[in-house]
């Protein structure tokens, strides 16, 4: 009974379905990149959609070539993409916050404002963190307050 199944056709069908779903995710994230109003919302759309779409396309390719070496390479690419995409998004988002990229006008900013106030206070408290070092270099007496 099992000999009647054409395994090549089964693999082709599974690969077709996975590739179509993955391409749909890629198209969705690209439209999100083009239409969303704000840098941060765009970045979120890309990081989720493109990573999932790429993973599905590569998995479809690995299932189509029925070989362990190819599947291992595909799994390596998927693991690497899933590791590096959030890290890159985090670093770019921090850079954008530091460079004062504007937010969307309807973003809820209460928590971020609280965080900024706290950070400003911390900077005000220890704004000259090399005070003791400079005093020691110039030969003055160093007081014990850290």
């Amino acid at each position, binding site marked *: 009974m099992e000999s009647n199944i054409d395994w090549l056709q089964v693999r*082709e069908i599974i*690969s*077709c379905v996975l*590739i*179509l779903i*993955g*391409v749909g995710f*890629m*198209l969705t*994230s*690209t*439209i999100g*990149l*083009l239409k969303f109003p704000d*840098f941060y919302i*765009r*970045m979120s759309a*890309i990081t989720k959609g*493109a*990573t999932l*779409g*790429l993973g599905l*396309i*590569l998995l*479809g*390719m690995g299932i*189509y*070539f029925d*070989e362990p070496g*190819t599947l291992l*390479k*595909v799994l*390596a*690419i998927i693991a*690497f*993409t899933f590791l*590096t995409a959030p*890290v*890159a*998004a985090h*670093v*770019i988002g*921090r*850079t*954008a916050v*530091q*460079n004062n*990229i504007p937010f969307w006008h309807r973003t809820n900013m209460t928590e971020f404002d609280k965080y900024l106030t706290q950070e400003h206070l911390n900077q005000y408290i220890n704004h000259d963190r090399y005070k003791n070092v400079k005093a020691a270099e110039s030969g003055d007496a160093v007081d014990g307050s850290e």
Partner: protein
Amino acid sequence: MSAFEVTLTIAMVVLSLCLVLTAIRFAIGPSLPDRIIAFDLIVANVIGIIAIYTEFTNNQNFIDVAIILSLFGFLGSITFSYYLMRINK
């Protein structure tokens, strides 16, 4: 032309359309981080196109190209964002 080849052609066309739309965002992006994330998406699209091209030609050597490209895309975006952090300090 079998259904499998039709599916691969449709996927190739849609990914090329994605590449064009990303290039539009790369051109009109109001700030530099917008262009960096557009570059990130371009790299992801090109990796997908390489995967589908590998299925078209049955030549499995192209998968190594995809591995190298995913490495260098990550390095590129990280390098650009650190450069932006440096010049605005």
